[in-house]
Each structure stands twice: as C-alpha cells, then as structure tokens.
C-alpha cells in the first residue's frame, strides 16, 4: 500500500524553462544583448529551483502542485515586469524572496497552532488598526486611500489586514457561537467595511464582503441569512452608486468607456484594445505596446499577458487559477478540524475572488477596481499577502499529510 506523490518536479522544470527562455528572449529585445535581464532570468530560475526543493524537503507533506502553480504564476509576472520595467522586476523578485520566507514561517505557525484562541481579539484590533491607519494617513492614489508611505517603503495596510481577517473569520465560525463573540465579530466586520468604503478602496470592500459572505455560508450553512447578507451588500453597492461620486464614475466608465476615451475611460479602452491586438497567440514577447496601458505593471497586467502572450495563454492562466482554487478546496475538505477547514477555505476564497474581480474588471465584465492579480501583479504588499495565504493553505496541507501518513503507516503502508 504505497501513496506516491510524483509529477510536480516535471512541472517545476517547465516553469524554469519558461523563465529562462522568456528572459533570454527579452535580453535581445533592444537590439543588443542585455546581460542584466539574462542574469535576472537565471537568478529567478535558481530562486525557484532552490526554494521549491528546500521547501519540499523541509515540509514533506506540502502540497507540491499548489506551490508549483504559485511559482509559475509568479514567474509569468516577473517575466512581464522585466519586459515592462526592469527595476520593478528586480523589486518584485526581492519581494518574492521575502514572501517565500513569510510562506515558510506561516506554514510553521499554522502547522503547530490550533486556532490562536484569545489572540484573535488582538488580531481584530491589529486588523482594524491597520485599516484605520490607512484611512487616516494613506495617500490617495487613483481615488483610493490605500498606500502608506514610510520613507523608502510604501505598503498597503489592507493587504496585511485581509490575512488577519481570514484567521479571525475562521476562528469565529469554527467555535460554538456565544452571543458576545458573535456581536464582537459582526461589529469588527462592519467596521472594516465602513473604513474601506470611507477610504474609497472599493476593490478591498468587494473582497472583504465577498469572503465574509462565502465563509459565513460555509461556517454556518444558513442559506437565508447568507441571501440576506447578499441583498444587504447589493443594497449597499446600489446606495454607494448614488452617494459616492467615485463609484458613480467607475460605473459610468464601465458602461461606456468609449465615450470617455480621452480621460477616465482611456485605461479600459487601451486594455480592451491590447487584448484584441494580441489575438490567439499574442503579438510576441517584447513586440506589443503595453506602454500604452496605464498601470500596466499592476491592475492591468492581465491585458499585457493577453497582448504579448495571446488570449489562449490568458485563458489558460485563468484555468490555472481555477486549478489552484480547486486544490485549496480539496485541502479544506480534508482538514482535521473545523478551524483549519475554514482557514483554508477563507484563504482560497479570497485569492479566487481577488483573481475574478480584477480579471473581470480588465475584460469589462464588471466595473474596474484597483486590486492586484495574485502572484502576477507588481506590488510587495500584495505578493507577500498572497504568499502568506498560500502558507496558510500549505500549513493545513502539511497537517493533513501528517495525519494521512500516520493512517497509512499504521496500516503498514508507505508515503513516497
């Protein structure tokens, strides 16, 4: 009775081949040979190879496929950033390395911890504090107050806060519900949403509200209350259209960006044109015009993917996110206790919602919001938060694997 876990090694090889081939191609983009980009490609490949093997060796039961998908998506991002702005790519690689450390620490913590107990109230205070800090001191960029500048470093407090939000939600839905705890949690969620609305960080509002509703339904099974929550959220969204000018502008541009092409609609139109210009297989890496798309390294990187690599590549990227999500849900379903299940479920939901919201915004399915594409978009805070969520998923996967291995070895089998 042997449980074999094979195949992820072959996929990581293809990830490395992708990085090396793309960066080698890019190093000839400007006529001559750019050694910096070539070295970046080699360095990125080595980072992926070494970190994957180290993590897989240290944590025997880590979900290797989830890690491979995460690495591949990150390498797509870094290749495109190298194409768009080499300095941004270097910074992203540095944040990726730091994020991997955060991932490892998160796996270690989640593997050992139960549900953090009373610490969750401290997390609540910290999470609320971060959002309040952003509301009071953040710079307004693109209408939203979500970036805090601390000298050479700037970060998004809502990114750190959302990881705490997942842990807190899992804790409160995993326990037997006491009235005071339920009220405290409800007040916390309400306060977070209000702060985010006041900060005009509408993407984060969608993310927090959506994750809360999904985890609420998973944790309680209360269909009617969930539907009520959805109705309240929808009502809030409609009310915000009439009350908040920023929302009205976004909806107006979404409905007819072509009429506002010269100003607010420019980004959406350029994005759509870029996707169309790429065709099925893309214009070719380095041959498109992504510089015409505003915020091409962050919000609109999906449009750059479609322009340079093609729509087929873009669709498969979406499918890879889907595979990532399904694996997260399988890990949640196999969790040993309710808290772990809701923790993984929450992390997976948040990553999936984030991917859906930004991709849907770029292709004009829904009004655009300023959130990042997980693992791919430039942004240290976002990348670290995403890797932290992967760490949560992997931490529970390790726990599941340890339990399964014990069951199998007790029955005389082996896990290889």
């Amino acid at each position, binding site marked *: 009775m042997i*449980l074999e876990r094979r195949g992820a090694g072959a996929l990581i090889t293809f990830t490395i081949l992708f990085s090396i081939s793309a960066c080698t191609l890019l190093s000839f983009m400007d006529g001559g040979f750019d050694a910096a980009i070539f070295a970046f490609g080699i360095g990125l490949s080595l980072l992926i190879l070494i970190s994957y093997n180290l993590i897989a060796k240290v944590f025997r039961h880590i979900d290797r496929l989830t890690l491979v998908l995460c690495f591949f998506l990150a390498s797509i991002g870094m290749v495109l950033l190298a194409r768009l702005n080499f300095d941004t790519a270097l910074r992203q690689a540095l944040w990726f390395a730091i994020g991997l450390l955060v991932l490892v620490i998160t796996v270690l913590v989640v593997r050992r911890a139960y549900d953090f107990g009373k610490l969750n109230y401290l997390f609540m205070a910290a999470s609320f504090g971060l959002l309040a800090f952003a509301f009071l001191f953040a710079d307004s960029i693109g209408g939203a107050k979500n970036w805090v500048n601390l000298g050479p470093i700037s970060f998004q407090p809502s990114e750190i806060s959302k990881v705490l939000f997942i842990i807190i939600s899992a804790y409160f839905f995993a326990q037997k519900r006491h009235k005071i705890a339920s009220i405290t949690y409800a007040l916390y969620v309400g306060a977070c949403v209000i702060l985010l609305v006041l900060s005009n960080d509408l993407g984060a509002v969608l993310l927090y509200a959506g994750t809360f509703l999904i985890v609420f339904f998973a944790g309680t099974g209360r269909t009617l209350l969930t539907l009520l929550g959805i109705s309240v959220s929808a009502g809030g969204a409609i009310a915000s259209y009439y009350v908040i000018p920023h929302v009205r502008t976004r909806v107006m541009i979404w409905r007819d960006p072509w009429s506002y092409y010269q100003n607010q609609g420019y980004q959406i139109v350029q994005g759509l044109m870029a996707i169309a210009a790429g065709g099925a297989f893309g214009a070719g890496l380095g041959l498109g015009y992504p510089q015409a798309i505003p915020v091409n390294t962050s919000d609109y990187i999906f449009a750059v993917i479609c322009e340079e690599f093609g729509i087929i590549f873009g669709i498969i990227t979406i499918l890879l996110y889907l595979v990532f999500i399904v694996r997260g849900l399988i890990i949640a379903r196999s969790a040993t206790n309710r808290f772990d299940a809701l923790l993984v479920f929450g992390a997976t939901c948040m990553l999936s919602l984030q991917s859906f919201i930004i991709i849907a915004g770029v292709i004009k399915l829904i009004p655009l919001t300023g959130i990042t594409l997980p693992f791919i978009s430039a942004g240290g805070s976002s990348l670290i938060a995403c890797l932290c969520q992967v760490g949560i998923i992997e931490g529970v996967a390790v726990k599941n694997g340890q339990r399964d291995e014990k069951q199998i070895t007790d029955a005389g089998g082996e896990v290889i």
Partner: protein
Amino acid sequence: MIYEAFSLAMRYWFVVVIFIILVGSVGISIKEYTQKRFVLGLAHSSIGYLKVISGPEEVQGENIQLMEKNTIGRSRRVDILLRDKSIDKVHCLIYKDENSDICISRITDADITINGIQLKDTAIVFAGDMVCIGNVVTEIHIKEEQEE
C-alpha cells in the same frame, strides 16, 4: 527583424509550456485524488499489518496489510499468499472477533508459534507478537484504534 522572428516563433512555445502545466496539474490532481482515496480507504479498513522478518524473498521485509478477515497460505485461494514449502495451502486465519480482539486460528495441522509457543487452536495476538507461520517469521502490528 531577427528578434521579431524569434519572438513570433516563441509565442507557440510559451502557449505549449502553459498548456503542459495546465494539463499536468489537472492530470496529477486527478491521479493523486483517486490514488489517495483508494489508499486511505484501504488503510481505514485495515486492522494492522504483518511485518515479514524472514521468509520467501518476494515478501522479505514487506508489510502485509491485514483486513478484518485474512486467510494465509500457499494456495492462490487465500487472501495472503506466502510461497514457502513449510506453509500449508490454507494455513491459518487472522481475524478481528466480536470483541475487536485480533485472533489467529490454526487450520488443520498448520505449524504456528506465537512468541515461541505452539498455537493449539485459537489465540488472541497483540502488537509486537512474533508469529511464525511455518518457517516465515513475522511481527504483528495492530492499528492504534484497534488496540484501544
């Protein structure tokens, strides 16, 4: 021009790579899921295992899963096949009784010792007991929940 040509050609390589990663991920996921379900299902229904200390080469050092009822012998009709001349065609039965004890029963004149003591008919076995089935020496391992 040369860069353009290479870039246009490599578009297809990038699509092939991402397609391989997608198909590979889905294939590995399905294979892992079905294999895990099967193995965990077997492990769940197992009561323990016999570790073969010495015996036929093909099973030496192996762990042989024990289900709720296991016939052991040299014939193909049995659940656990041990190809050794000292073993009868249907040699013995290892099973879980109504009290959830793991028992071993001799069939016909089969030669069985438990911790060096000849088995007359039926006996309860415990984790760590050395069970000699003919010339095949095994150590019995029982799943923790069974021992409780």
